[in-house]
Every structure is written in C-alpha cells, then in structure tokens.
C-alpha cells in the first residue's frame, strides 16, 4: 500500500487534536486566571513540503507531525488583562507567581484570585479551598470589628486598621514544572519541584482575566481547519491513485 496514505491520516488526527486544544482555549475565554495552551500552526508551504516529501529517515511522515504537535502543546503563562471594579476579595497578581491553595490532594497553585470568605472567615476559592498565607496556614480575615478590608501589594491584609494575616505567593523556576488539573488549579509535575516565593504585587478589587486572545485562536482555528482539509484531500488523492492502480492499470480483462 502507499504509506503516504497513513501519513495523511496521521496528519488528520494531529489536526483534530489541535482543534480540541483551540476549542478548550475558546471555551475558557472568560475563565479568570486561565492560561492558554499554545498551538503552533505551521505555514502552508512548510506543511505541504512535509506531507509531500518522500517517506523515510528522520522526517518520517507518519511520526513527525504527531510528535511535533505533542511537544507544542505547552501552557503559555503570559499575564492576562485585569478586570477592575471587583469585590474586596478579588485579588490579581501583577507578574510571576501563584496563590497557594490547600486542597484535599495537597497544596495547589492558582492565578484565579476571585476569592470569598467562608462561614468561619477563611479566605477560600469558589470550591471552598483555603488560600494559604505565612507558614502555609490558611488566611483568616476577622471581619467582626469592621468590614473595610484592604489587601496591600505585598499581600498584607488590614481590616479597619488592624492587621489580619498575609497572603504569600509561590513561584517556580521556568519552564514552570506545573500541569493543569482543572478548577483553575495547577499542580507540580514532580515531587522535586522547588517552590520559591514571589514578591509580585497583588492588586485588590481586580481579577486577572483569561490570557486567551480570541483573534489568535480564531486564526488558528481556521488555519488548522484548512490544514486538516488539505490532509484529507491528500488522503483522497492517494485513494484515487490506488483506485487507478487496481482498477485501470491492473484490470485483468
């Protein structure tokens, strides 16, 4: 059989997977603190050259597009825009760093600072996981004496003039040894990942929006679709070639 047929089929699979990643970025266009997955889209001519070049060697058609796509699915930790006018427990990090959150599975990290208080006064995420401060202890905001909560840039919390704990930020060496686990949380990819501290300023009354750029994603969506279409055309061409070989050249009449 013609191996190019499998190459084209493999390419279709790759583009279907890319489509999944773009769809997830677009679905999270309004998710606070969301960090997009990058999808590198190759120029048409590069791709065409790749798909039509002879099979064999390092640039094997069957394997290389797949392998490349997978290495390209990386999380992009660029800063998201701030949305202001939030509540008093809406916090955004300006620069590198993560809020630390205690989950039943251990300490996790997030950039989504749309926090709330629970019934005991702990600062928690939308899932009720406590946000950690000094000494990895949950941050408790005592609002019994007043409700003017001020969060300074270094994370120090003041309630009506009385200091009430401090939020600390974590950071890691880059590239970040983190992976997403949903619920806007990141977890370290290995036990050895060393947690550093971050001194990035915290902005109160602001939420960091998703860093997904709709224009980029739409362009990627269209390009990816056309690449998929091209791979499909090539697969059909291979099929036609086989058809000719079997039914015209090899006709036994």
């Amino acid at each position, binding site marked *: 059989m013609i191996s190019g047929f499998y190459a084209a089929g493999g390419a279709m699979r790759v583009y279907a*997977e890319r489509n999944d990643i773009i*769809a997830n970025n677009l679905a999270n266009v*309004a998710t606070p603190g969301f960090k997009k997955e990058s999808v590198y889209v190759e120029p048409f001519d590069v791709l065409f050259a790749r798909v039509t070049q002879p099979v064999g060697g390092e640039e094997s058609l069957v394997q290389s597009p797949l392998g490349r796509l997978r290495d390209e699915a990386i*999380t992009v930790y660029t800063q998201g825009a701030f949305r202001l006018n939030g*509540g008093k427990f809406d916090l955004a990090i300006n620069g590198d760093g993560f809020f630390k959150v205690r989950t039943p599975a251990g300490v996790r990290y997030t950039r989504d600072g*749309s926090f709330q208080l629970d*019934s005991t006064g702990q600062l928690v995420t939308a899932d009720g996981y406590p946000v950690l401060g000094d000494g990895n202890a949950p941050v408790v905001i005592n609002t019994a004496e007043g409700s003017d909560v001020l969060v300074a840039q270094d994370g120090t919390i003041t309630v009506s003039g009385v200091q009430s704990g401090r939020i600390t930020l974590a950071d890691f060496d880059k590239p970040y040894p983190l*992976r997403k686990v*949903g619920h806007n949380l990141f977890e370290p*990819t290995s036990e050895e990942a060393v947690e550093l501290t971050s001194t990035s300023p915290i902005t109160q009354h602001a939420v960091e929006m998703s860093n997904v750029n709709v224009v980029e994603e739409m362009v990627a969506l269209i390009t990816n679709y056309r690449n998929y279409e091209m791979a499909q055309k090539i697969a059909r061409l291979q099929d036609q070639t086989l058809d000719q070989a079997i039914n015209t050249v090899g006709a036994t009449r």
Partner: protein
Amino acid sequence: MMRALYTAATGMGAQQMNVDTIANNLANVNTAGFKKSRVDFQDLLYQQIRMAGASSSDSTQVPTGINIGLGVRPAATQKMFTPGLPKPTGNPLDVRIAGDGFFQITLPDGEMGYTRDGAFKLDDQRRIVTSDGYLLEPAVTIPDNVPFENITIAKDGTVQVKAAGEDTVTDLTQITVATFVNPAGLTAIGGNIYKQSPASGEANVGNANAEGRGSLEQRELEMSNVAVIDEMVDLITAQRAYDVNSKSIQTSDEMLGLANNLKR
C-alpha cells in the same frame, strides 16, 4: 468523536448561564437593595495524553507533555455586596443601611429573613412591615396618635415618635441589624430577601452604627448596585464568547464531515 464538540458545548452552556445572570442583573437595575450576581468560571478536567517527565528514550525526557483540556464550568454565582447608591425619598419609613448589615424580617413560616431593602410601610395595626407585609424584627408598633411625619429613626436604629400636638419625644424599640461573615453565601429567596445558609455563617445581630455594622439613614433608599455600563460590556463579552464557541462546534462538525468524505 471529537472532544472539541463537547468542549465547545461546555463553553456555550457556561456563557448561556452568564447571559442569564446578566439579564437578571439588568432586570433589577431599579430594585431597591438589589445586589448583582457574577458567575465565576473554572476550567474543567484535563486529559493527560503524554506525561511531562516521561522517558522518550534512554537518555531523554519529554519536556512538557501534553494535556488536553475538556472545557469550562461555572463554579459559582457570587452575590456582589458592594454598596448601591443612596436615593433620597423623603419618606420617613424609607431606611438605608450605610455600610454592612441587613434588616431582619420575620417570614410567614416563622423563619428569619434578611434584606437590604428598607422601603418599609405600616400595616393595619401600625406595625412596621416590608412591602410584602412581613414584620420587621424586632417588631416596632407606632402608636395611633403619632402622625406619619413625626417618626424619626436615628443612625443607631432608635425609633423616636412624637404624638400629635405634644412636644415630648418617646423612644420606641431600637431596630437592630444583622451582619454575616460571608454575606455572599446567603441564599437569595426572591422578594429582596435572603436566608442564612451554612456558607454565610451565623447572623451577628446588634445595634446599627457599632462594631462594623452600618448606620441607618432615614428618608433614603439604597438603589440597586447594578451598573448598566458594566453589565452591557459583560453582555457583549458573553455574547461574543458564546459566538466563538459556536464557531468551534461548526469547525469541528465540518472536520468530521471531511473525515466522512474520505470514503467515496
């Protein structure tokens, strides 16, 4: 089938909920004491296709791995308890809480309700009630001989009345105010009324204008805290986000169509 179809469907569902919430905010733009809601989103599960750190050969490791996300989910609709603008009305039974706190209302089932809507009235027994006729707690009864205009409510909640034709001012019951550790956790039951929930914590009842509780301002109402411009911007964003997710679905559908066309 393609994950993208389901991923984009979660995106459309989430944005639909967002539009529903914004529509409710806009519908209540003139509701006294109304607090706007906001939907908080979270990313959904991630499917691990290749683990970062896995060995790709004897001496090399996969540097980043591959995670495919499966969409978005609404995590919470959060009531935003930012203050609404004051609106002077001149009505002696219109009371605004300047700062934190809620009026306590006895609901018909005997349970306690909480509201920021201070547009009170008198019922046939001259008790102070809400627009729905629910009693204010503690109950305040205005004596028969007191003209409507002679009711004074002080910043600390003391109700003072002066009977017609007399000069002496009589102190009645003091209106108390309830605060919560987490007001955003209260359950809204409609009619501008909230109920206590496990998330809100216990009501902390006490005199107004003390210990962090707001003061009472008579002859004023607290307007809704909905800012029309903010809501309109959110509405446009939500609509476009909905739109863009529908494009993902359309594209995925066309890709599946192409795959089907492989077989002639």
